[in-house]
């Protein structure tokens, strides 16, 4: 299996020089770090718009799109079906369709948004699994490793994939910076945004595109199923530490980048361990640390404060000669 060609036994960890002198390791490291930074930064707006779950819908619904893109490429155009850009286009189309479907059902019927999202997610994902089996059962050229779309395979990142990730990621980050003011206002106060004459549909489309990009950018390395963690976990952790939006976006990008880089390093040096899941666990550790240790919102500090307040109250009541 090509996936485990770099599998190591014996040593528990490797030194950094050895790590970075290996081309595959470098690609894994930089590829996942770029994904972490981009998804972390863009995920902050998804978090604030309370669209964390919609990114899960997009992630699962991107599977049939990526597979249809593969089929189109192979059957109709006769080109390489695993091209990263092609894959992204396919994923964006079905991911968007699924999210629009869920929103439309929730807006026009009495069915709640969580139900609508669950129906949309499972239907599109089911369709994706069906296509996956169909491709596996037929002799399409270049179909090897296509099941990696589900859970990713960081070792398969090529230099061209890295370039595409950087380009697409930079495009999405540029969109976010150029429309920073519009994104912020629409997220915080959609009514004022409309009142001041900003077209909701334009901003929503732009914001939605950035969120979709944040998810599909990681399909090859991490896979669609786990990508949502890259979009959701870093901003949730970052929110614990900062009270400004620029601070939150920057910190979320840093958490995403560090978590991914560290996760990639760990997964390789530990040997036969898949990269995506390790990164998800590292991101979760950052999240947990943030919940426990952040200065203003730490659950530990909050609990201690309550204990102290209760003791102080008891002392006061005793001093007043009453039974607490």
């Amino acid at each position, binding site marked *: 299996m090509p996936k485990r060609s770099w599998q190591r036994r014996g040593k528990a960890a490797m030194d950094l020089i050895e790590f970075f002198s290996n081309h595959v390791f470098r690609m894994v490291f930089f590829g996942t770090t770029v994904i972490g930074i981009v998804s972390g930064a863009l995920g902050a707006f998804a978090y*604030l718009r*309370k669209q964390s779950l919609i990114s899960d819908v997009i992630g699962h619904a991107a599977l049939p799109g990526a597979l249809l893109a593969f089929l189109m490429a192979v059957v109709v155009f006769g080109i390489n079906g695993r091209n990263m850009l092609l894959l992204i286009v396919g994923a964006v189309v079905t991911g968007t369709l699924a999210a629009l479907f869920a929103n439309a059902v929730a807006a026009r019927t009495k069915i709640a948004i969580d139900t609508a999202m669950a129906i949309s997610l499972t239907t599109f994902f089911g369709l994706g699994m069906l296509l996956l089996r169909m491709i596996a059962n037929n002799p399409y050229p270049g179909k090897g490793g296509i099941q990696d779309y589900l859970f990713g395979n960081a070792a398969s990142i090529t230099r061209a994939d890295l370039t595409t990730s950087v380009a697409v990621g930079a495009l999405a980050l540029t969109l976010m910076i*150029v*429309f*920073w*003011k*519009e994104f*912020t*206002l629409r*997220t*915080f*106060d959609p*009514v*004022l945004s*409309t*009142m*001041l*004459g*900003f077209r909701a549909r334009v901003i929503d489309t732009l914001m939605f595109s950035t969120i979709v990009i944040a998810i599909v950018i990681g399909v090859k390395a991490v896979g669609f199923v786990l990508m949502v963690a890259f979009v959701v976990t870093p901003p949730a952790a970052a*929110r614990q530490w*900062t*009270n*400004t*939006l620029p*601070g*939150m976006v920057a910190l979320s990008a840093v958490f995403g980048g560090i978590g991914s880089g560290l996760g990639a390093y760990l997964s390789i040096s530990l040997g036969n361990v898949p990269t995506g899941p390790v990164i998800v666990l590292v991101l979760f550790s950052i999240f947990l640390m943030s919940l426990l240790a952040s200065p203003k919102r730490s659950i530990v500090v909050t609990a201690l404060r309550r204990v102290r307040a209760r003791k102080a109250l008891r002392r006061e009541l005793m001093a007043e000669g009453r039974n607490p």
Partner: protein
Amino acid sequence: MTPIACECRDLSVAYREDPVLRRVNFCVPTGSVMGIVGPNGAGKSTLIKAMLGLVTPLAGTSEFFGKPLDDVRNRVGYMPQSASVDWDFPTTVIDLAVMGTYGELGWFRRPGKAERARAMAALEQTGMQAYASRQIGELSGGQRQRAFLARALVQVPDLYFMDEPFQGIDAKSQQAMIDVLKDLSAQGKTIVIVHHHLGSVLDFCDHVTLLNKSIIASGPGEETFTKDNIRIAYEASDGAEAFLAEAG
């Protein structure tokens, strides 16, 4: 004849099948402070929202300074009922006030020093300058409303719509806001204010509209805010009876 700041003609609104407003004709003379009064569910907020296009009416048209809203957006400010935003949003009071300049900045342009200075001046007007760098979630209800009023002031509109600005706020904040309203009125601005406390309507409104799904009466306060009209609007509800009994 006084010029008209805003008016709507034959405005009807329904949420799903329930009619909320029926053929409302409503007009506000320039420079007046118009209070919109009526029982719960009378459609007071809906009237404002429908005029501003935030709710799609079934029928009817609205004009502001004789023009459709899109032509005069910068002249119209709106202060929604509180609690309509996420108070845990990572933004400070000064950043909130700066948002009032976004309309005139338009697409792409970013707020700079001048915009921040204006926002700070507006915060001073509402007595909120000391809280400029606070996260909005750390404010009390009254402080939140004053911060939102500052944001509306930054926009420098000629016409203000305010939806229940005094709901659930402390006496100090209420007084600070009434002072600002009187100031605005003295400058010749027009203010439309949804208010539910009958006893204090005439304290700061010179015009009153009594609404209950349709207009009961609308015009100068002393002509419209009469016992008979209040009784019709409130359909003899307890709150109104108590008020009328007190008023003698």
